[in-house]
């Protein structure tokens, strides 16, 4: 059995359409704030893991310079994943399982604004059959949405209702980029961007960062009277070719949810990586979340989508919601690859 690990600190930057700061500059205060919340010194951290994507910077080994925001002297033990920060947290969680260390920092960051994600993201696809087609994230999401619409499991109005609810919830979120009261009929009257997706069905591509501090049980209790416990965490992947899987389902999310123990107790709230409105239905079905579960109280990725930090932000938002008293047991979900190809599920629980 895995040993208990808790979140004792977390912080996020706002989600910016375009930050004038460098990635290091906006990472620095985020990491400092997470460390301050945990009540530790940066030199107390035994292991650091970062998640970012060099393709966004257009520079090889760009992730190395992000360590300027961590402080790497005296020498530190660190690692990097070319993935969302949620997978950096997974690696930190695994490192803590060994039992020889008791404090870890995980963070995710991305500055997508200098490039065009619609042209950069096809580079993550199969280099022979998909990258040469310019298979972009909006089109891939649209293929998935159409399949779900055709199956009758969702309507375009229900998709717009997800957007309107997320934007309304985001009004109270200081990190959100898009928020406000929306009229669903007005949203539905807007033109398609890539049919069946309208503007409100699509996420912003944002700049931003998120960091969390993990601690083993004894250390967590010494540092905090209200730690948020990681009760389970798992991630699974599916085949890459979008035409070789049923886009209407997410068996990898279901498997990760089972592995993380989602069904082992009642779920009060969930922070899901719903970057496209129709995906909320796919994910809540895969995780077996009923109507009573509060989904994306933060507004979710449709209102704040810092590349490479969106998944870890779900963990931070869920931890914040638990500590705020919105619920005791939460599910955080991160995704990677083309429409929900790879999924990470984490079950969080409050102390009380």
């Amino acid at each position: 059995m895995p040993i208990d690990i808790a979140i004792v600190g977390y912080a996020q930057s706002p989600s910016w359409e375009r930050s004038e700061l460098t990635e290091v500059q906006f990472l620095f205060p985020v990491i400092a704030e997470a460390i301050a919340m945990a009540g530790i010194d940066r030199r107390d951290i035994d292991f650091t893991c970062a998640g970012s994507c060099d393709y966004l910077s257009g520079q090889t080994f760009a992730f190395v310079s992000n360590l300027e925001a961590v402080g790497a002297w005296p020498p530190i033990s660190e690692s990097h994943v070319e993935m969302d920060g949620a997978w950096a947290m997974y690696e930190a969680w695994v490192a803590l399982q060994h039992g020889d260390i008791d404090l870890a920092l995980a963070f995710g960051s991305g500055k997508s604004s200098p490039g065009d994600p619609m042209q950069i993201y096809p580079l993550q696809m199969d280099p022979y059959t998909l990258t040469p087609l310019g298979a972009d994230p909006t089109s891939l999401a649209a293929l998935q949405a159409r399949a779900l619409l055709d199956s009758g499991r969702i309507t375009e109005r229900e998709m717009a209702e997800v957007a309107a609810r997320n934007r309304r919830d985001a009004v109270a979120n200081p990190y959100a980029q898009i928020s406000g009261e929306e009229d669903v009929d007005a949203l539905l009257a807007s033109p398609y961007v890539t049919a069946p997706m309208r503007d409100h069905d699509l996420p912003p591509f944002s700049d931003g960062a998120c960091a969390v501090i993990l601690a083993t049980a004894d250390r967590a209790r010494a540092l905090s009277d209200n730690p948020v416990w990681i009760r389970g965490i798992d991630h699974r992947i599916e085949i890459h070719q979008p035409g070789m899987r049923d886009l209407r389902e997410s068996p990898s999310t279901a498997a990760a949810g089972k592995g993380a123990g989602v069904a082992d107790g009642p779920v009060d709230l969930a922070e899901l990586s719903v970057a496209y409105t129709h995906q909320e239905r796919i994910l809540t079905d895969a995780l077996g979340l009923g109507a009573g579960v509060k989904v994306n109280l933060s507004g979710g990725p449709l209102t704040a989508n810092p590349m490479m930090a969106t998944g870890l932000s779900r963990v931070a938002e869920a931890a914040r919601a638990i500590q705020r008293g919105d619920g005791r047991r939460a599910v955080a979900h991160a995704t990677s690859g083309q429409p929900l190809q790879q999924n990470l599920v984490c079950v969080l629980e409050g102390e009380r």
Partner: protein
Amino acid sequence: MADIPITTHVIEFPYTRTLGPVIGPFLTGLRDGQILGIRSVDGRVLVPPTEWDPETGMPLDPAGLVPVGPGGVVETWAWVTRPTAKHPLAHPFAFALVRLDGADTALMHAVDAGSIESMATGMRVTAKFRDERHGHITDVVFVPEERA
């Protein structure tokens, strides 16, 4: 003012590379005007063909490469109003998952349909090969079957 020296640099990858026993024949097939799929361990025909079986991870036998299409059915589609510079067509078109005749999985590709009104789930499309082909996935584009 001194003459500015001008130097010409040629950037090259001084090696050749093989696309392997499955992707190689698939792209060579496109150059020759044919689309190939491959038989999986459980007997399904996968398009595009893969070197390894998606379910078991076992290597797939290149002898199991079989012609599919050129016609097929649109399983789902997306209408691209404003193509990017990386898209295969410069005017509005559809991306679609096309299940080719004889295949058990769908190929993602572009459908040059003219207008969104010409697109529907379940419609038939067919491969239209470019006159000049290079062994690339973009050697082909799909069009509605009645317009072929």
